[in-house]
């Protein structure tokens, strides 16, 4: 394969790949919400919240915590094996997860917790 052709091909694929990655990233990036604005309309959506941990407990491999922001608080559930660093009370966190209904309440099934 002529080298000049390979150079052009690799450049085109790199640029195209980066553009596609950018658009995919924008599309799958979850929207950030204030806790009190979450409602039934957001069920099963991937969402992001920021807040402070009020309390944390670990039960049978699950971390269950309450995260509070200025507007309210919500329960966040996370599998222990997905989180190497155990969150602690009073930590500022960013939570990305699925908004779900459980019994008569709402909760977030966290996929990622970032300690800020």
């Amino acid at each position, binding site marked *: 394969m002529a080298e000049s052709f390979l*150079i052009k091909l690799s450049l085109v694929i790199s640029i195209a*790949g*980066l553009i596609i990655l950018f658009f995919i990233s924008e599309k*799958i*990036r*979850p929207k950030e919400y204030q806790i009190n604005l979450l409602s039934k309309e957001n069920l099963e959506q991937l969402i992001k919240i920021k807040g402070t941990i009020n309390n944390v407990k670990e039960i049978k491999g699950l971390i269950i915590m309450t995260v509070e922001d200025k507007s309210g608080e919500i329960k966040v559930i996370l599998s*222990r094996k997905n989180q190497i660093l155990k969150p602690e009370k009073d930590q500022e966190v960013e939570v990305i997860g699925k908004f779900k209904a459980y019994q008569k309440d709402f909760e977030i099934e966290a996929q990622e917790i970032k300690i800020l």
Partner: protein
Amino acid sequence: MLEELISILIGCILGIMTGLTPGLHINLIASIMLALSNFLLKYTSDLNLIIIIISMSITHLFLDTIPSIFLGVPNEDTAIIILPAHKLLLEGKAQEAVFLSLLGTLFSIIIICIFIPILIFIFPILNFFLKNHIHIILIILTIILILKEKQRFLTLTIFLFSGTMGFIILNTPNIKEPLLPLLAGLFGLSSLILSIKNNTKIPKQINQNLKIEIKKIKFILIGFIAGVFSAFLPGLGSAQTSVLTSSIIRKIDPKDFLILNSSINSVNLIGSFITLFTINKARSGIAVAVSQLINLTLNKLILIFSVILATTFIATVLTICFSRIFSKLISKINYERLCYSIIVLITILVLIISKPIGLLILITSTSLGVYVQLKQVNKNHLMGCLLLPVILYFII
């Protein structure tokens, strides 16, 4: 005593698996052990779990250069040595590449153990003065790196391009192990593709009588100092540190770079325990695991370093043995078929771990790596994929 020895051996076995298997990271094993810690603690103590994790990480540290050197398959700590290691492989000197990495790792571990009391005193002071200025240091060093090149505009463009790619990928949620397709593509697969294109043949590896040259000690010491900084500064990994350090040194050939990189890697990992002890910050996945299992006191820090020294001896022997085995096998294998097999293996690994978006990242990063190599731009600048996100993290 017997329990501790058994724990070290278990850790070494796990370290062999993670070190020689591309894509299998010690952090993954450590996080699984943490998740199972409640169950495991019924049968053993928390100290024995720590011993297993530490000895696994040290064995991994020694052995993970072997797939990088012989197979061209990197991880985030060894990505940057692929090109110099590959050059030595093509000269029949892969064992020398392993030996040089071993030298850097072994002696820097000994040096850091000697300097523990001084580092315990120095770390908090350095952290206090430097932690809020890391982005300025990184920007200055990056500019120096780019100005040293002949094709400055192209180098800057590539740095920014790879930096943008890294920024997008690292800030996109739900990508598991994003560094795997990113670094494997930039540094691994791109080299393999060009080896296939160039009909590269691996010569018979020379069974060398390798000697320790005193003048190489200089790079071990430089690596030690650079590694100390990367151990306590947030966001600065060993690969970025290696690239930035090599930009400051006037004359550094590929062999010296191998020593430098392995020295920085070792100090970065081991220094993270001192960072945890002195400023209560965990700068590595292993340090995080240790912090979750025990409260790190001076006695336990001494225990950790005893385990490190004991494992170092075992891991040195293992590295020499595996290096000889790989050395005998590599020239008997059809290299083109081996390259294709590794490409397929990495692609499958990426698809399983990082899913289809990982495949897109792999294709994009591989293309960029191929482009950079064909345009004869220094591949070190592709580390912009990690440097630029760190700089932006501190600025934004």
